[in-house]
C-alpha cells in the first residue's frame, strides 16, 4: 500500500510560458497578414517555371482579363477605352505602380496585347504576368 502511494509522482508541464509563445505567434501572423483586397474575376492562370515572387506588396494594381474579354482593374469593370484613363489616374496617384496582369490562359493574345498597348500609353510600364509556379521538374 505504501509502495503504491510513492509511485504517484507529480507530473506537471509548466504552462506559464504558453501565453508568451502564443503572443509571439500572434504578432508574427499580424505582421505577415495581408488581407485580400479585391474580388477580381475568375481566371485560370497559366503555369510557368520562371515564376518569381514579386518583392513589393503595396504598389500593385491588379488587372484581370477573363476568357470572355472582360477587363477589371482593382475591382472595377472597365471597357478597353477606359483602361487608359483609369491607369493614367492611378499613375498620377502613385508613379511606382506595378500592374499585375491576371489573365486567363484561354484569353486571346491580341486582346491582351491591346490592353498592354493601353498600359504603355498610360506609362504603366512595369508589368507582371501572373502565373502559377511550376516546379522545374514538371512540364
Amino acid at each position, binding site marked *: 500500500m505504501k509502495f503504491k502511494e510513492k509511485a504517484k509522482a507529480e507530473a506537471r508541464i509548466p504552462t506559464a510560458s*504558453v*501565453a508568451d509563445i*502564443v*503572443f509571439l*505567434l*500572434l504578432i508574427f*501572423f*499580424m505582421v*505577415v*497578414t*495581408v*488581407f*485580400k483586397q479585391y474580388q477580381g474575376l475568375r481566371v485560370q492562370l*497559366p503555369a*510557368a*517555371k*520562371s*515564376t*518569381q*515572387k*514579386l518583392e513589393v*506588396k503595396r504598389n*500593385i494594381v491588379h488587372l484581370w*482579363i477573363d476568357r470572355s474579354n472582360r477587363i477589371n482593374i482593382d475591382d472595377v469593370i472597365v471597357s478597353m477605352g477606359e483602361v487608359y484613363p483609369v491607369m493614367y489616374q492611378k499613375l498620377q496617384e502613385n508613379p511606382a505602380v*506595378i500592374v*499585375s*496582369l491576371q*489573365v*486567363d*490562359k*484561354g*484569353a*486571346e*493574345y*491580341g*486582346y*491582351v*496585347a*491591346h490592353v*498592354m*498597348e493601353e*498600359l*504603355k*500609353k498610360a*506609362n*504603366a*510600364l*512595369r*508589368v*507582371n*504576368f*501572373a*502565373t*502559377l*509556379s511550376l516546379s522545374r521538374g514538371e512540364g
Partner: protein
Amino acid sequence: MEFGNVKRHITPTIEIPTASLGDIVFLLLIFFLVTTSLNAEKGIGLTLPPPGEEVEVSSKNILNVYVNAAGKILVKGEIVELGNLEQVIRENISRNPRLIISLKTDKKAKYEYMVRTLDKIKLSGAKKISLAVPEF
C-alpha cells in the same frame, strides 16, 4: 492598535485578472491563422518600352520567335518544339550576347501559348526580351 487595523483595511490588493488573457490571445491567433493567405504575388515580371520610342536595332541582333495561333513556335524559319526552345535560345545568345529576343505572337493565339513561350525565353537567361504588338 485600532488605528493600525484601519490602515490595513484601506490597502486592498488591486489586481486585474489575467487568467483569461491567454484565451483572448489564442482567439486572436486563430483568427489571424485563418485569415492569413500567404500566397504572395507571383508571376513573370517585364518592363514595357515607353510608347513611341523606336530604337534602330540591326537585324542580326534580333532573334525572332514566332508563335502561331496553334501555339507552334518558329525560330529562324524552323519549327522548334517547346522543349527545345530554351536550348536553341541559349545557343544563339552564347554566339551573340547582345541578342534581343523578339516574341511575336499571333493575335488569335491563346494567352497561355505566349506565356509558356515567354517562360522558356526567361529560363534561357535572356535579358533583352521584346514583345511585338500584333495588329488589332
